[in-house]
């Protein structure tokens, strides 16, 4: 390995560490948040049963440290760089030379096609390690012993497809080694027995592996039929493309060379450098990854309740095309208490779009949790945290467990809090966290001894009705705060349910002695104009300009209906409730 090769490896390592953790910090944090590892019998058994189980376990163990993005990316970069180094070193172990820069091609392809998939990187690493280890063994009998061990335990480390690739590479490399060790003068080279041994061993190994997969599925853990033999560990990638590409890159890297050529070396180094730049450029500018990162960034800001920052971060132009941006913008408005003033500045129709009602993916569940947390409905926060965890590949995640402890404490569900604290204390990275929360649990238990019991049941259902009715149920139950009243009122306005809007507005006087926010004032002005019921004014107060503006709107709308409108005198009412009401009333429920 010359200086340029070393420089290439260092560049690869540092770029992987720095560049990716710089561009995607929140996405990396989510890797830890949506995974978990605990030293617990049930969990360890579950992971080992997932073939290749040891790699799955190791991957989960390492993912704990992705809580700190820099550490996480250092781990990924280390695994990938080690893979590259082993690949580059393999021909030398076969007593040949090679172009070390080629070792980077496979890790680069892995990074490009399976970003953040540590388990896959580890599987690739073990495949390469298996090949490298074979070629550091000198004596043939040790080689046979090694192959026997590899074939019996290898499926715990890598999938069947990789085992086949590893044994094939070993067989080819071994054949070349054997051929080189036989004197060129031997006339009957093609019939020399040692020339055929690697091929025979390869066939025997793969016959054994074929049966071993089935056997392990019966004895260790059931492997679904479509993931038992030939499949692509990279989701969405055709297994043939995956296998061909990886085999070519593998062979290219471990291909022995008798004489090195400078020009070829420079060419390869240049090619790898260009590929490296291209791969990192494509990764860092991938619109889908960036969108996801932005989503998680908004979630992180909402966690810290930095509402203004959220509004500043969201690109206004994308509000109508990106639901996540719209949701977080509305949540931020609610957090700032400006939702009733600004709701109709946003492209929203129907109250059910204030949160993710029917989408159960992890991002949506996390948003829903934050939504209900702002309303202080912690039972629902617990449920959403739980559902968030369920979406994780292990059926639970560190983030969901941490959140569940918090909400279990807030809802006085102490045994459940204790259970999850105990669970998390068995992970490597939550010892002090568990101590702190156990202290909080103890003090909370002391405090709550005298508190009154909750009702067994009450009409406080969530998810059963439309949002407005749901919030009204909360108010009727006695859970009254400004945010719940606002969500109830805004929801009724969005659903054009003015009867319920007026009922909530007059029953829960959170605005008594204050001027109504814009949307409510517009709605009340419209109701009074429409019904002529002036008695409403005794419950609410708002600027008289809304009555005047509504009359203008009504005149303009009537003129428009009768095609009498003069374009130049038209006032823009686009961001008013009146405009929304007129348009939304024409939409059928199914269109909503």
């Amino acid at each position: 390995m010359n200086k340029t090769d070393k420089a290439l490896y260092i560049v690869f390592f540092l770029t992987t560490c720095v560049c990716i953790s710089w561009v995607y910090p929140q996405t990396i944090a989510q890797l830890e948040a949506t995974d978990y590892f605990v030293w617990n019998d049930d969990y360890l058994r579950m992971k080992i049963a997932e073939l290749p189980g040891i790699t799955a376990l190791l991957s989960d163990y390492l993912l704990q440290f992705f809580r700190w993005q820099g550490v996480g990316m250092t781990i990924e970069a280390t695994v990938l760089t080690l893979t590259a180094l082993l690949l580059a070193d393999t021909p030398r172990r076969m007593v040949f030379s090679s172009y070390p820069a080629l070792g980077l091609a496979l890790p680069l392809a892995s990074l490009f096609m399976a970003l953040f998939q540590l388990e896959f990187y580890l599987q690739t690493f073990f495949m390469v390690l298996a090949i490298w280890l074979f070629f550091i063994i000198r004596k043939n009998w040790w080689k046979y012993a090694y192959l026997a061990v590899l074939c019996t335990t290898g499926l715990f480390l890598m999938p069947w497809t990789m085992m086949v690739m590893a044994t094939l590479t070993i067989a080819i490399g071994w054949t070349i080694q054997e051929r080189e060790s036989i004197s060129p003068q031997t006339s009957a080279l093609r019939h020399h027995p040692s020339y055929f041994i690697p091929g025979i061993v390869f066939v025997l190994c793969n016959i054994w592996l074929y049966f071993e997969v089935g056997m392990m599925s019966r004895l260790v853990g059931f492997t679904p039929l479509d993931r038992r033999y030939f499949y692509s560990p990279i989701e969405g990638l055709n297994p043939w493309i995956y296998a061909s590409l990886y085999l070519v890159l593998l062979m290219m890297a471990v291909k022995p060379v008798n004489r090195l050529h400078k020009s070829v070396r420079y060419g390869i180094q240049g090619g790898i450098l260009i590929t490296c730049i291209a791969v990192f450029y494509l990764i860092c500018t991938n619109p889908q990854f960036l969108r996801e990162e932005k989503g998680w960034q908004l979630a992180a800001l909402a966690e810290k309740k930095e509402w203004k920052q959220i509004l500043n971060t969201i690109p206004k132009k994308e509000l109508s095309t990106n639901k996540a941006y719209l949701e977080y913008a509305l949540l931020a408005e609610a957090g700032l208490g400006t939702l009733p003033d600004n709701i109709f500045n946003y492209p929203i129709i129907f109250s059910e779009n204030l949160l993710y009602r029917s989408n159960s993916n992890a991002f949506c569940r996390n948003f829903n949790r934050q939504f209900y947390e702002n309303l202080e409905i912690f039972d629902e926060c617990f449920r959403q945290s739980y559902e968030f965890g369920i979406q994780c590949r292990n059926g639970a995640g560190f983030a969901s467990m941490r959140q569940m402890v918090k909400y279990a404490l807030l809802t006085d569900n102490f045994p459940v809090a204790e259970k999850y604290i105990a669970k998390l204390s068995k992970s490597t990275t939550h010892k002090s966290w568990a101590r702190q929360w156990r202290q909080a649990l103890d003090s909370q238990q002391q405090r709550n001894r005298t508190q009154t019991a909750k009702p067994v049941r009450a009409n406080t259902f969530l998810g059963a009705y439309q949002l407005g009715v749901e919030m009204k149920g909360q108010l009727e139950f006695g859970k009254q705060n400004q945010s719940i009243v606002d969500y109830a009122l805004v929801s009724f306005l969005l659903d054009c349910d003015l009867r319920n809007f007026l009922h909530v507005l007059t029953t829960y006087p959170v605005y008594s002695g204050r001027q109504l926010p814009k949307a409510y004032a517009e709605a009340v002005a419209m109701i009074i104009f429409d019904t002529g019921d002036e008695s409403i004014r005794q419950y609410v107060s708002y600027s008289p300009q809304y009555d005047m503006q509504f009359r203008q709107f009504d005149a303009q709308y009537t003129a428009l209906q009768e095609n009498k409108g003069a374009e130049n005198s038209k006032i823009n009412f686009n961001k008013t409730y009146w405009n929304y009401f007129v348009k939304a009333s024409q939409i059928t429920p199914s269109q909503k």
Partner: protein
Amino acid sequence: MRHFIILCFTLLFWCACDKKMPQSQVEELPPVFPDYIGVTVPANIAPLNFGIKDATDMRVAFSCEGTTLLEINGDDYIDIPLSEWKELLSKCRGKDVDVSVSAWNQEHPDGIRYRDFTIHIDDSEIDDYVAYRLIPPGYVGWNKMAIMQRHLSTFEETPIITNNENEGGCINCHNFCKGDPKRYMLHARNKGGGTIVVKDGIMTKRNIAMGSQNATYPNWHPGGRYIAFSVNDVHQSFYSHCTQKIEVFDFSSDLVIYDSDKDSIIEDCRFTDTLSLETFPAFSPDGRMLYFCSAEPHLLPYEVDSMHYSILRVPFDEKTGKMGSPVDTVYNARTQGGSACHPRVSPDGRYLMISVADCGTFTIHHPEADLILINLMNGDIYKPDNINSDTAPESYHNWSSNGKWVTFASRRLEGRTTNLYFSHFINGQFTKSFLLPQKNPWKNEQRFFSYNVPEFITGKVNADRDQMSKMLQSKK
């Protein structure tokens, strides 16, 4: 020589340390988990390993009729060797075993010996296996779930099917014909889903549905040909600020009979109309009666407090597969109160066990739900002692094949996950229930999963999981 003496003293000291004795004694019973104090257990139960929270050392001695048979040391729990436990069970069958517990912890660094307690080893045995569904504890989503079988004499727990076999879909509602491991059924919901019906070990996939609605809660007729199903449109809603967290309810539910020989549904318009909801069918052990729950429909979930299910029964003719008349009320929710579900008749046909909550159909989510016994000989209805808890639901009960044991699920540990309990049934009453023994007893607390619908089985299910998987992934 000097070195030899030092070595001897060290060894002596070592031995003395190993045999350390508790320095104090209290009259309190030990705070063991699970609570096995005073329980009656079957003669073939797995070792009753238990622990004491925060103990650093424990010593437990089991003795019978004054003779110490077994001494075990542990840290925060004891792990009794299987062979020694079996020997103890065989020697103490039908007798009381005295258990002496000493523990060392931060509060009692010199050790404390608690008051001895007894465990009664009954003469009778329990069925070899219990099958249950392991599912995440509640709400809508799931990730991993499995129908498992647990060998009750050891700690062996093996899957019958996991949702790996149907690409992560839901698997549910397992039911065995008289606990026969070669005759059972289960549903799998996903693309290519259906009902797996295994008869005499032969597996088939059926699409059992009434219109567009899939068959839901099953009960196999003891004759082995018919399966009674309720066809439910199940929904759930979530409470906030309440003790109860979830309400599961049916918008509609009907009762049908499935003929597994002809692969056809037998409908009876009395039980498929919209005037009432019928659910949770269960045949009597002689197969002549079909018990089920029935209630008038209401606007749900708003009026869930008004949903009161009664237990009815109707004669069943095994020759025709038809339900006869009259329809008899066994538990009248209107007059007797509450809402009943999961009727299960004891193997001798003398008792009916039901789970009763204040309202609704899914009692496992109702903290107030209790198990109730109805003496079918004289109509007495009573709440048995020793089996119910004050604050957690008891439900999903089932009788062992000899009728001497019951299993049921309860959320009494932490209110959220359900665990399995067992109790001995004698002369119309139960002895104190005990938690499913585990190798590490804390596993009962730490497990993420709920034990759902336990059913005794008389042997191990040897299902071909590859075949199941192929069936569940094919569209046929």
